[in-house]
């Protein structure tokens, strides 16, 4: 008798609870981030950014009355751990997962999320092939690597240069960017007078510079990293060779100015995703204020902010079509147009890549600061 009563009671409570939950079924969104490991500072920023946005959303009544629950899984910045993290998030019924930072880490989790039927929005994985696999529910709020070449080439043209010396350092990133840019120079009619590599860590680039000088370009395009860019600028000045130079996002590091010296770095151009201080939209300024208030510092890079953008577009999709991954993915691709995210307007193309320019043009000021143009 007692037993039957118990069963009845539990059935009743079960019915009651599920009935009550129906009214506001929480929307579960996962964050897969490198909370530990080499990129821990990025990962922790990602989590903080998403948690602040979720708290704000819930304080305002959630999405159509339903609260948002954020669950974090640590991917350690390694592909191996990412696979485990993805499994873990799938077993707790996520609608969508935000993350992650590294391209190889994202790659290891992509198929798992795809088979699990959830949406994945990567925030820092720029490798081209990630969105070339035909996965219907993969998105990213960061630009692809080939986007940078396009923006770099167009900026060179827009700045009025027509004879470029293209220099890379033979790393896969740098050579890839140089070749990408080179192709686009051909289509937009920018002439090339010099193309060669330098050897990183050689320190002495005076020979390259004298050869470039002899070739007579009106700009040097360098696609490598900041240590070499700094040396090129410094040695260029030492040789009395006054030609402007422009580079890619790997030169966005203040050490560049230290190495080159303020005088030699003055006027150097580079393109890069905007630094946080240059995100001027109302939403971004307000968000930075909240973040600063809560954590006492600013996020260390733009990539964490792009995780916040991923959260905002997902919330928007749930609001529009409900927490159904298939319909949300469709909606994000076809109906989301110029949504105002923290980093600027967001739309996605058919592959889930972000449309619209994330890269901005920077110029080093005479006192060595990076000024957005």
């Amino acid at each position, binding site marked *: 008798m007692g037993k039957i009563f118990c069963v009845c009671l539990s059935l009743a409570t079960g019915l009651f609870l599920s009935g009550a939950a129906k009214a506001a079924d929480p929307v579960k969104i996962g964050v897969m981030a490198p909370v530990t490991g080499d990129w821990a500072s990025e990962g922790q920023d990602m989590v903080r950014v998403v948690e602040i946005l979720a708290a704000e959303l819930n304080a305002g009544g959630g999405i159509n009355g339903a609260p948002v629950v954020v669950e974090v899984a640590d991917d350690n910045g390694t592909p191996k751990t990412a696979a485990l993290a993805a499994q873990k998030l799938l077993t707790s019924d996520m609608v969508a997962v935000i993350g992650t930072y590294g391209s190889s880490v994202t790659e290891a989790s992509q198929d798992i999320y795809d088979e699990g039927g959830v949406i994945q929005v990567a925030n820092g994985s720029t490798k081209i092939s990630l969105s070339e696999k035909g996965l219907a529910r993969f998105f990213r709020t960061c630009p692809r690597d080939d986007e940078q070449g396009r923006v770099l080439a167009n900026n060179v043209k827009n700045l009025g240069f027509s004879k470029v010396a293209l220099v890379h350092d*033979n790393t896969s990133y740098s050579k890839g960017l140089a070749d990408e840019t080179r192709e686009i120079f051909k289509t937009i009619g920018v002439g090339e007078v010099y193309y*060669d*590599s*330098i*050897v990183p*860590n*050689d*320190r*002495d680039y*005076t*020979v*390259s510079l*004298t*050869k470039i*000088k*002899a*070739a007579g370009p009106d700009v040097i395009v360098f696609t490598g990293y900041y*240590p070499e860019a*700094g*040396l090129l600028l*410094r*040695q260029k*000045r*030492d*040789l*009395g060779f006054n030609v402007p130079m422009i580079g890619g996002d790997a030169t966005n590091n203040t*050490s560049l100015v*230290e*190495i*080159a*010296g*303020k*005088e*030699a770095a003055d006027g150097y151009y580079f393109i890069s995703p905007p630094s946080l201080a240059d995100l001027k939209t109302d939403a971004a300024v307000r968000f930075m204020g909240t973040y600063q208030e809560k954590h006492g510092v600013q996020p260390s890079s733009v990539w964490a902010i792009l995780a916040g953008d991923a959260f905002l577009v997902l919330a928007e999709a749930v609001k529009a079509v409900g927490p159904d991954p298939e319909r949300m993915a469709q909606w994000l691709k076809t109906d989301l147009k110029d949504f105002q995210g923290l980093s600027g307007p967001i739309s996605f193309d058919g592959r889930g890549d972000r449309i619209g320019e994330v890269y901005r043009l920077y110029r080093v000021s005479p006192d060595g600061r990076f000024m957005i143009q």
Partner: protein
Amino acid sequence: MYDFDFFLQQLSNGLTRGSIYALIALGYTMVYGVMKLINFAHGELVTLGAYFGYTLLVTLGLGRSLGPPLAIGFSMVMVVGLVALAGHLLERVAYRPLRHSDRLAAVVSALGASIFLQNAIMLKWGAQYRAYGAELLPNVVFHIGSFSLPLVRVLVFAAAAAVMAALHVFIHRTSLGLAIRAAAIDQGAAKLMGIDVRRVIALVFVIGPALGGLAGLLVGLYYGQINFNMGQIYGLKAFTAAIIGGIGNITGAMVGGLLLGLLETLSEGYISVAWKDAFTFVVLIMILVFRPTGLLPERVAEKL
């Protein structure tokens, strides 16, 4: 496009680069001459010199407080002294206990010392690039037609040349130099002649590192940028220079260093920057094929 000015430019590029290689190569060749040991940790002593200079000139701000000429002179003396001390300690700890064991043991010990020093430098000063600051040296450039010659380049070359000339005089005109030469030819015979070979080895391990440390400081001053594993590439280049010149031969190291610098810049200038190393090392192989002991081989005692 490639006129005479261009050639002059490459010549000056090559001599500057080569004089740094030569300074480092001297350390390899002196140690090899006396001990028949390749001191693989020598590149790290170069790095150490660069970082001591960084600490003195940038962290302690001597560059600003003393003014360039005095600060650079003072830091040269300090760096040479400190790296000489480090070299001496290295010999005491890593090589002296192994003097009577197998040569292989000493080589392994050298490799170990190299790895240890490189990581110690990384832990002490950090893995990121450090900058000397362009403000340390006045930016004076001499222009002769389209040929331009920065003052700093002249200074680097002059400093290296002066030190090498002094070393040449020391080795060939003093009794200590004679002792070093004698120990290099035959340690046993030198001992019989009343030369304290242990002291000669200790001396060589002071002079070699001191020159390497100076080279590190010059790299910092000239290029303005240093990092914890810079010794690797400079060590490799200087070792090559020592081989080209004939390892064990002091004049050979100087010639080899300058020649390697010129080979690099000329192949960069007239062939391709990307192919520079391939071309340079092909030349090295050719030299070794036709002159296996290098251009100026070590003097070996003639056996009668």
